[in-house]
């Protein structure tokens, strides 16, 4: 499964980076979304895959009986998901306003501060 996921992560990076290299700002945002998903999955895979054993302490026990999914990458990813949503939302609105003002979404036309 890890081998498969490694390829999946690679494909998310490849498509995300390709979209980041576009001149259209809208495509850039989609690239950002793909890239952040890829990164999250990468962190998740690094913590090893354990099927169906979430790190939750059962009633009456003081610790999780192994094997269990690593809680640390999950905590990191949880933060990352939320932050990347913030970034995405802000970037989206910013581009929307910029497009209204400038009338283009070609990055080559957005090089100077003159409108």
């Amino acid at each position, binding site marked *: 499964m890890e081998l498969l996921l*490694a390829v*999946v992560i690679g494909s998310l990076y490849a*498509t995300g980076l390709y979209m980041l290299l576009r001149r259209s700002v809208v495509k850039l945002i989609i690239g950002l*979304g793909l890239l952040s998903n890829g990164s999250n999955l990468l962190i998740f*895979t690094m913590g090893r895959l354990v099927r169906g054993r*979430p790190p939750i302490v059962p009633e009456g026990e003081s610790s999780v009986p192994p094997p269990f999914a690593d809680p640390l990458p999950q905590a990191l990813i949880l933060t990352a998901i939320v932050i990347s949503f913030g970034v995405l939302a802000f970037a989206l609105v910013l581009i929307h306003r910029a497009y209204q003002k400038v009338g283009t979404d070609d990055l080559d036309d957005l090089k100077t501060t003159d409108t």
Partner: protein
Amino acid sequence: MDVLLAVLSGFLLAPLAPWLDRRLGKRWGWMWALVPLGLFLFFLRFVPALARGEAFTRRVPWIPRLDIHLSFHLDGLSVLFALLISGIGALIFLYAARYLEGHPHRGRFFLLLLGFMASMLGLVLAENALALFVFWELTSLSSYLLIGFEHERESARSAALQALLVTGAGGLALLTGWILLGQIGGGFEITQWRSQREQLIVHPHARWALALILLGAFTKSAQFPVHFWLPNAMEAPTPVSAYLHSATMVKAGVYLLARLQPIFGTMDLWGATIVPVGAVTFSLGALLAVRQSEAKRLLAYSTVSALGLLTLLLGIGTPTAVTAAMVFLLAHALYKAALFLIAGILDHETGVREPERLAGLRRAMPITTVAAVLAAASLAGLPPSLGFLSKELFYEALRAAPRWPLLLLGNAVLAGMALVAVAGLMGVRPFFGRERSELQFLHEAPRPLWLGPLLLGLSGTIAGLWPAGVERTLLNPAITATLGQPAHIHLAAWHGLNPTLLLSALTIAGGVGVYTGRGIVRALAVPRVLARFTPSAGYAALLNGIFTLARFQTRVLQSGHLRYYLLTIIAWTVGIVGYPLLRRADGIALRRSAPEHMMDIGLALLIPLAALAAVRFTSRLAAIAALGVVGYAIALLYMIFGAPDLALTQFMVESLTVILFVLVFYRLPRFATLSGRWARARDVVVSALAGGVVSALVLSVLEMSPPNVISEYFVHKSVPEAHGRNVVNVILVDFRALDTLGEITVLALAGLGVYALMRLRVEE
């Protein structure tokens, strides 16, 4: 008073100078001369003990771990230099106070001059090589500021920069040389190197160390072919030129050679490099001097010539040569400072800088005339000046040189003749002959201006008349320290009728001839090929080359297009991460792998397909839907592999994202294909490579299994300490609660930003 305090006093006083100078008022500027005068008296107290053959060391640990100490060594050589620096310094300060009276930035000038003097004292007294280097660079830095003092002038700024770049580059070479020596010798104290010189000079790296150190000395002391910065440095105010180019800055390289002579003097490389460089500089400087018309440039080239002679003599390194070097060092410091100051007086009083345009000033300026004649006599080597003695001595040393004595002697006679002509231009031409009608109503310079030159000129003559006095007190200890063994010299004004005296007479006679025929020397055209390949043209070309390279690489790296920046970053990352991965490609093998289920495989395959669709779709809505599919599929994977919290959050965020996209996308432009076919192909290749590298990276990381102490800690402490059963939640809200607070803040700010942008009315 302590040596440490003596060296540092200049640095301590310097920052106060602008304020203090304003408080003193313009009439009281001479008070500044008390600082170097006090230092002069301080160093003078050591002279009797040094004459008895004693030496003093004072050591203050600075960075002991790196063997860097503020250690100072007072022996004949360093105290001779310290006396010249402080003694001539006192006269320069006095002169400068009057010369710059009423100048709005006189306080700043004294700040720089004090800093320079202190750096110079530190340089000659330092015993630790690295401390010496620090002071060396401080002199470069402060002389940069002094040369560029009239910073409104472009020529002053570029001359200052040139001096800084040339001496600074040499300084770096010196540092490298020191470090090499330190690694060979295991320490940075110069006396220690001296005691272990036998092992030091046979080490294979010793040659490199010496070559680098010589590079430093040559640049500082303006040896051919890097002599050009010195004449250009004449952009400095005259007191600065007088100070830097008589006794201090440019003598630092000579000092270094004298200091290292006992260590390296016997190495082949020593004589083989220093002697030719010095000899060429000696005669070239003198010949170029005759071709100058401005007094200061004339003196600058004659300084280059003098530095060449000093270097040459130290390169020969025989006891006679070292003796001649020390006598000439003293003589040159005295007459050159005097002549520079006189050039300043002429400029100050007449406004004319070319000696050829002056005549008959002796009536109006009798005292200046006396000073000029005395100093010029020493420069020309006329008896009974100290200059005459030194000329006798260096002819003798060259005659007895172990290598090329005849060549060196001929070269020296030629240079000597040119210097006699220079002396004539500075000491005779402006003061004698018929007065010029356009130069009427002239009067003698004010006392602070003529006092320095007169005292310096008189000292040169007195020392020449009574050489035994300076010999016992100053020169013998310095020669002993340089040779590393006791020297017994006997200077005398009259050596009897011998070949050396004949050479002296020939030089003077020839010099008078050069002076009379100087028009011919000046008219000599330099071949065009030579004029194009001068060292200063080389400097300009080098500087231009660096600028061109900088512009080129800026143009390439700073294109202003986001995608090219990204492309550079991605390509580099692929290179430096991918290369080592490729080298061990055979080693990647999964030891432990979770078993696959059909559903997992289906989900996992769905993700790349949806991602590819998001890239390929031309409809915006379809692309967003594809992006949503990627997100949901990943959320399902989280669910399967024991991360319900992640799955929940991802579902929520993914839904919100799609809603947001759809809301805004109605007002966004349609997808357009803006890049050309080739650009797209290039991007496909680069991003596919990047994806491959990431995949390989994931696999190679999975291969390792580091102990997971942090997760263990959280899992075990979750219930007992934080009373929570969901470990992920406990980490977020308890163990790493502050991080989460930061995250909430970021999200709140992003929300505020979104709100503000939505409400913003764009003015049309």
